[in-house]
């Protein structure tokens, strides 16, 4: 885990997008659009010097806890975990196959994942429990939780948002992948919950809005928040594009439930900004 230059981080982003598309090519049932919107966030966390982790000992007590609450939308974390040797890269070839631990919704059977995924609105509350536990243990480890904006419709999040502020969980950073699209429509059409920053502020959180596809901004916000301990939980609202780098999927309101064909993926890999 080392700090990488901006160019190196950008290269990682491109690599992860490519690998995510390749994973989707092998397993079309994966949620590719929401996995593409959070690539910069994941790259910053794992390569930008944010998370403490140990691939040889995923449950290492000194690690930071990264709860991927939007688990179905984190297929893009698979190539990162493989690249960092949490598991052999050869496992990526087996995604979706019988006997593989890489499915379309990751669970802690995959080294590096902390919690059960697939049902939304759980990760932040669990992260709050971890944050309280770490504080009581006087641990310097921190908790990072990634949620989707559609996921914020689950009321359990707001129970946790109140809880985190009341208990001054300044070792907790929430990242919202704010791609503006839920499953069937734009969030603004389903039930407009913007502006998110004002809501979090009124609940007592420190907030920062970033361009979620600007790796420098994402990394800077995460670095900054990692060092702020003022008795408030922190949220980074990352404005992203659902399906980023996925051609026709970008900003398609139904992108969540759409798959790319092999031909579409091959073209993207050759000509698009995800090409090497």
């Amino acid at each position, binding site marked *: 885990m080392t700090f990488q230059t901006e160019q190196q981080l950008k290269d990682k982003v491109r690599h992860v997008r490519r690998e995510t598309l390749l994973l989707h090519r092998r397993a079309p049932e994966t949620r590719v659009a929401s996995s593409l919107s959070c690539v910069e966030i994941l790259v910053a966390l794992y390569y930008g010097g944010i998370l403490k982790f140990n691939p040889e000992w995923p449950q290492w007590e000194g690690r930071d806890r990264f709860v991927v609450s939007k688990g179905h939308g984190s297929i893009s974390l698979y190539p990162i975990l493989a690249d960092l040797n949490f598991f052999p890269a050869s496992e990526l070839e087996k995604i979706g196959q019988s006997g593989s631990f890489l499915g379309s919704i990751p*669970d*802690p*059977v995959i080294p590096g994942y*902390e*919690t*059960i995924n*697939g*049902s939304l*609105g*759980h990760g*932040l*509350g*669990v*992260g*709050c*429990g*971890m*944050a*309280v*536990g*770490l504080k*009581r*243990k006087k641990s310097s480890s921190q908790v990072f939780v990634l949620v989707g904006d559609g996921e914020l419709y689950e*009321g*359990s999040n707001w*129970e*946790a948002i*109140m*809880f985190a502020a009341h*208990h001054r969980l300044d070792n907790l950073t929430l990242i919202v992948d704010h791609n503006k699209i839920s499953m069937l429509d734009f969030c603004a059409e389903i039930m407009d919950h913007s502006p998110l920053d004002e809501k979090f502020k009124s609940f007592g959180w420190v907030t920062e809005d970033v361009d979620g596809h600007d790796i420098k901004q994402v990394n800077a916000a995460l670095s900054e928040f990692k060092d702020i301990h003022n008795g408030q939980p922190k949220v980074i609202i990352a404005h992203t594009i659902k399906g980023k780098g996925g051609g026709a999927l970008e900003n398609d309101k139904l992108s969540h439930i759409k798959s790319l064909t092999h031909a579409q993926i091959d073209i993207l890999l050759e000509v698009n900004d995800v090409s090497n």
Partner: protein
Amino acid sequence: MSATKNKTMRDVFLSALLARMGQDSSIFFLTADFGSPVLDQIRNDFPERFINVGIAEQNLINVATGLALEGYRVYTYAIAPFITMRCYEQIKVNLSLMSQLRKMNVNLIGVGAGFSYVVSGPTHHSLEDLSIMRTLPNIEVLSPADWVMAESILDFSLDSHQPKYLRFDSQPAPAIYAEDSKPFNKRGFNVLNAGGTICLAATGYMTTQAINARNIMAEEGVEVAVIDIFRLKNFDAVMLAKTLSCYSNVISMEEGFIGKGGLDSLLLNLKNDYELAFGLKSVGIGDNYHFELGFRDELLEGYHAGIKSTLEIVRELI
């Protein structure tokens, strides 16, 4: 034999837990804004390991999950229907599923078994919990019949690193076990009275009802056996089958819906699995809710689940 002091399960259990919190810094207590006099003392003595999460049962379970994953032994506390049904999916995802992959000691203390919050009406009655909690893998279901049993579950709850549902009655009641005894065992049941050809196999409050029915029959010169079943999963099925095989008829008694996965289903499956010959009757709550006020025993009689109804069934079987 029988003691006479009326106590609530929660006061006794929480007092014993309070004592252990002083010796064991891994114990964490969470309540969903549900109290007791002992709880005030836990809050005062251990403010670092006590949190009232507010009336927010979903978050109660999620926070408990995070703490358990950090190695704490967690106790969560709320009224029975709310700590089971309001957060059922949190329990499924974060306790039932998760504990198959990670060791987690989370104890869900639900107060208000069956009709025990009798005047609060059907939202506060807990008639579904036995069956719906039994359906979740990796979760223990413990249903003590009195405060002595409730207290003796404490050691097991601390030592067993898996999620558990502890179903406590809300009302003070006399003990049925000797006050200084430790009636809990991993076998999961105790034979309180053996003999005769009919066995009342009961759980929770119904164990007291079974004992009363048994005493009435004894006065009439008829021996009836009573078994208290307090561990509704992971009990010693071989031993229970062997014990019940001595009887021609078994009557299951639970203060919960029958025919839906509770104690009667447990016994029916046992009978089937071990090819036992006994006849099985179910005493419990039929398929509807109850809005009208009444004493607990009146409500039970209304469902043909009171002592009078139980005696009628017993007399028919003699």
